[in-house]
């Protein structure tokens, strides 16, 4: 055997051995890498979700252990047949989501179109428009509650100085105004979300399409309807779906601004759940309400994505 052939043979067998080792290692290394994330998901996502489903079948109140028992679907039966507050809070949630998503989308779209055009100080304008998104819900409440203050708040001062109102307007106490007042505060915070997302999508539309449309004599409106809107469809569907889910689950602004009042007029389903579980200690019933809310959102998401043909070719 030539001397030079030995190292070559060894090198060849080492390569083969290395490949075998890599293959041997290959089957478990990815699982090991995924294991920590999977464990965290199991502990912090799957377990709480399953425990909510389990508690929804119980009458569970930690302050009254003598009444705790398995009740099967009893909680759901009570929710669907004997709980007028569930129906009321669900209706308020639906109104809240529709008002917020529609208004935020319309205003966000308008702002995105403006910010997509070229003008002086555009960077500053973008920063100003996006800034409310960085404000926390509690801070939004603090700011708007001050503006709504009937004794010297911003709106009170404006209305009085312009002679539009003689007596203080009770924005958060008047049953006809409170919902609109809360919607406005949340609207202020939510519009930038749509503006940011739609602006990003607008910037991805090739300019050549608009040039071609101009050459063909299309007006601005026609270009918007025929080019912009269809190409924004997936972004709009995703943004409205995400926002609808977030707004449905929104608690911070309403909880801190109105606490669901007066007389439950701003009590949405999540607020009602929080009251049942946390304030009244009815964790079993609160869990059942959570399951119902989860199923409603799940059905909504499936139907919405189907109807909007999300991800399909235009």
């Amino acid at each position, binding site marked *: 055997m030539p001397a030079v052939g030995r190292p070559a043979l060894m090198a060849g067998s080492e390569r083969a051995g290395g490949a075998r080792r890599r293959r041997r290692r290959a089957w478990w290394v990815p699982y090991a890498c995924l294991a*920590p994330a999977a464990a965290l998901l199991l502990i912090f996502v799957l377990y709480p979700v399953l425990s909510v489903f389990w508690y929804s079948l119980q009458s569970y*109140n*930690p*302050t*009254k*252990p*003598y*009444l705790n028992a398995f009740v099967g679907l009893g909680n759901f039966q009570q929710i669907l047949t004997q709980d007028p507050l569930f129906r009321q809070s669900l209706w308020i949630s639906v109104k809240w989501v529709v008002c917020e998503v529609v208004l935020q989308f319309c205003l966000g779209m308008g702002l995105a179109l403006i910010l997509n055009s070229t003008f002086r100080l555009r960077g500053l304008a973008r920063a100003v428009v996006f800034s409310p998104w960085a404000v926390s819900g509690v801070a939004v409440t603090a700011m708007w509650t001050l503006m709504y203050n*009937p*004794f010297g708040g911003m709106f009170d001062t404006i209305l009085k100085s312009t002679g539009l109102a003689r*007596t*203080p307007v*009770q924005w*958060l*106490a*008047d*049953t006809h105004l409170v919902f609109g007042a809360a919607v406005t505060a949340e609207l202020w915070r939510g519009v930038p979300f749509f503006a940011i997302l739609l602006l990003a999508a607008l910037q991805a539309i090739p300019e050549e399409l608009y040039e071609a449309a101009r050459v063909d004599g299309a007006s601005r409106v026609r270009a918007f309807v025929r080019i912009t809107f269809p190409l924004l469809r997936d972004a709009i569907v995703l943004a409205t779906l995400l926002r609808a889910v977030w707004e449905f689950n929104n608690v911070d602004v309403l909880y801190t601004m*109105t*606490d*669901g*009042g*007066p*007389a*439950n007029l701003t*009590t949405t389903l999540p607020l009602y759940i929080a*009251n049942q579980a*946390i*304030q*009244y*200690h009815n964790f079993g019933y609160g869990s059942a309400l959570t399951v119902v809310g989860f199923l409603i959102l799940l059905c909504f998401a499936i139907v919405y994505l189907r109807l909007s043909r999300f991800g399909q070719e235009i």
Partner: protein
Amino acid sequence: MRLLRSLGIALAALLVVGFAATPIAASASSGSGQKVTITFWDTNAGPDRTPIYTALIKRFEKENPGITVNYVGIPEADYEQKIEAAIASGATPDVANPGQGQLADFIGEEGVQSLDGYYKSWSGRSQMDPSSVKSVRAEAPDGKLYGLPYSGNVDILFYRKDWVAQHSLPSPSSSWSAFYKDASALTDPSKNVYGFGLRGGSGSVAQLEGWIYAESGLTSYFNAKGQSTLSNPKAIAVVKKVVAMYGKDTSKGDINQTYQPMVAEFEGGHAAMIQHNLGSYPQDVQAMGSSEVGASILPKSAVTGKQVIVNSGDLVDMIFKASKHKAAAWKFVTFLSSPYADSYWNQEVGQIPTNTVAAKSAWVAKNQPIQTVEKALKDPTTVVVNPPVYLPDYAPIQLQMEPVFQKVLLGQVTVPSFMDQWAGLMTKAQQQYKQSIKHKKA
């Protein structure tokens, strides 16, 4: 790539070491017996009260060099939820200072340590107000002591003494008819000034209770049959008067009003009178001056002629069952109820000390609202009504009834219907509680 891998390995190692080190560190501190750290959750933390505890803890640590107190301040609105989560997860602190109303819940959740063993051998127990200790004991179905009281409280009528004098009106604390007359006379909507600042939001029903029993003269929450007295016609008549004031002698915005805006309404000159507990007094005096603030217990009942005072419940210090340093925790709890600490804390907050030595401090004699309470308590005809804070459902029922009370103010629900619903829930809670005790004994 190599750098990323190295970082990943380092992070994983750190996590493993971190997890492994936690029990080692915990066992070292608990097993040494030298220096002990206890954790204290203050359930009403804020710029007014946190400095009081900071000063007291400093003194305690000086007197007890082997014990360090880790102070954790929790906003009042969140504490019940946080303690319940801590009990459920077994991650409680050593000591907390809840209200008596919430203590019953924590006892029900089996998270609180009975203090009887410590209390029996404590030299300071002779200084404790026996009625306070009895009241805390009555909260537990087994009659054991689960908290050491450190502060008493009752509802007070705060009013603008200067305005009453300017309008030559009778003192609103002299009678209920004078109160209603003053509320009407001091109302001037054109100036955004109202005779009374009503608490219509969170805490409204708890406050309404004090008013109902004081004005109606009813002396018990339940009758001999165990039925709630809230649906008694005398109680209904009182609530009808309260509701009639809304929007006339009060601002319409009061429907959402919680404690802080209510006090701000009074201190800002938009309300001539408010009802709140003793704790508001120092703040009111600081904001407005003692010559302007009048403070007295609620007037005598015109129906029965009796002075009825609803005990707002003591504040207590409790030790958690899961505490690993119960002896140190007990030392801290007894320090907080000692003559010095009890006097200092209550003087700063304006409430009644539960340590009888502290209650004889010079400042107590100079505190006007406390003096009106003391005077009334010395009157043998005065009746002190203890709310059923032992009921796990007591506080949740109050919360549940708050939106219904708002509906009453808006005219969407009638007063009798509201009171019947409220009384029904209270009666049911009382029956369930009695059954649970029977069940336990059996």
